[in-house]
């Protein structure tokens, strides 16, 4: 038993070390964000300063508030569009058996593999053709398509778990298909829809490449592009860059910690099922 105890400790130490290693970049960022600008040249392993002033200055010296509002607006609108578009599709493939159903599901999986980085030029060409360069609207519509495939899958899987008898009973009472979707299925599917919204929000909030290429006015930048612009300066004000970076992480991190069961469950559903 003594050796078993020893092995156990090795496992715990190993797991803790892995976690510590994974947190080093964030920890070093936190220390940087708490260092006064004129002391940024003397790095340290532990926080020698607690210069919270940096977290005040980022709102004054950088249009961070503008960036954050833009990000929330783009991600908020885009995740709503994504879920509204994906919802009927998830319903359709869950409830009907029709010619082309497998084709549609295959298409969904395929689009998930088409990466923006390969088709950015045709996307940009369409943008120019429609005179939508530097338009927030174009950014919102484009990024709203990113989470659609995964959201369709997610909702389909969720609807699959709800007995179809509920809707059949409603049909007997004279409810139409569309009526059944809205009055019967949706109210009992709130958890599934919330998960879909969360995943769609994180996906759209994390978009960087599309807004970077589509937008030219700084006042329209989402937070990721804004902070990148700060960090891309010749001599970036690192203490402010780090403070801003941490603020930018807040929405996805809050979403993750509040909903980590859903998020990790969604990711691993495939793994456990097969």
């Amino acid at each position, binding site marked *: 038993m003594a050796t078993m105890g020893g092995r156990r400790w090795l496992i715990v130490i190993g797991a803790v070390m892995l976690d510590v290693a994974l947190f080093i970049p964030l920890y070093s960022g936190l220390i940087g964000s708490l260092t006064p600008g004129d002391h940024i040249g003397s790095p340290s392993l532990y926080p020698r300063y607690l210069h919270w002033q940096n977290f005040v200055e980022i709102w004054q010296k950088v249009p961070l508030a503008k960036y954050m509002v833009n990000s929330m607006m783009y991600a908020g609108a885009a995740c709503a569009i994504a879920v509204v578009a994906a919802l009927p599709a998830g319903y359709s493939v869950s409830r009907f058996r029709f010619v082309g159903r497998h084709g549609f599901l295959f298409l969904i999986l395929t689009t998930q593999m088409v990466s923006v980085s390969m088709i950015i030029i045709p996307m940009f060409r369409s943008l120019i053709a429609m005179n939508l360069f530097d338009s927030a609207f174009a950014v919102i519509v484009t990024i709203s398509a990113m989470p659609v495939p995964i959201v369709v899958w997610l909702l389909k899987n969720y609807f699959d778990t709800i007995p179809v008898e509920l809707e059949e009973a409603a049909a007997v009472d004279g409810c139409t298909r569309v009526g059944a979707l809205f009055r019967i299925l949706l109210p009992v599917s709130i958890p599934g829809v919330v998960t879909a919204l969360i995943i769609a929000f994180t996906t759209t909030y994390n978009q960087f490449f599309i807004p970077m290429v589509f937008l030219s006015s700084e006042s329209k930048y989402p937070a990721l592009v804004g902070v990148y612009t700060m960090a891309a300066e010749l001599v970036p004000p690192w203490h402010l*860059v780090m403070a801003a970076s941490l603020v930018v992480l807040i929405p996805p991190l809050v979403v993750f910690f509040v909903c980590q069961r859903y998020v990790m469950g969604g990711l691993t559903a495939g793994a456990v099922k097969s």
Partner: protein
Amino acid sequence: MRKVYPYLFLLPSLTLLTAVYLYPLADLVRTSLYDAHTLAGLKAFVGLANYRLIMSAEFLDVLWKTLVWVGLSTPAAMLVGLAGALLLNQEFRGRNFLKVMAFVPWTIPHAMIAVFWRWLIHPYYGMANHVLLSLGWVAEPLNFLTVDSAMFTATGMRVWKGAPFALITLLAALQTIPREMYEAAEVDGAGPVRKFVSITFPMIRGIFLTTALVTTIWAVVTFDMLWVLTEGGPLRATEILPIAIYKKAFFLYKAGEACAMGVVGVILVALLGVVYFISLKGTKE
């Protein structure tokens, strides 16, 4: 009317996916056959000339960089993820906390990851050099982003992002293995290595393979992270395919050639996708 319903319900998502993915995909192939300017548009049909133009030593170098990037980062991320999953598959207090914490890097936007890494490895201000100097392992601050070192640094960053994903999916797979299998093996006198080779790995092989393929595809199409870290530099040291396409189109305005490179990329990803689908089928049976 009832027969039309299923299709009507697909319309919103189909419209969106067609506008954002499928039409651009078709336009990618078309543009690759034209002499085209990124802003001015198509000029003249040139057939496969763009493909001949890009088949240069320069492009082969880009493909080689892409291969190095994927070939280093994917196996490393899978190994770190597997090690972490095996550790966290043991019973101990606080295990769930460590599992959730290990997943945090995965939730951070790619572009932000690179900003944090640039700060961490900053030659004069960064914590990495501070530690190396304090320990006396180096006499001068190391530059982690030289022509020779940038790719390794970038790979490290990619592993930092990818390992948590592998960890979580592999851990979920590990937890489906019935404990009785190990107990039976122990009765037969099997040691830890023997158990891993005969039970653990065969049981998670399917998930391992699909996770590795997804990680590979994501690595091939990486843009955000590398762009923010190095913009493909220094001197093209980290210029993988997506970066090369972007530079060709938006710095040199050679849209035709850039699209030809895009088609090569799409074919590459499609081949990986075919393998992925086959492996998915394999794990379901």
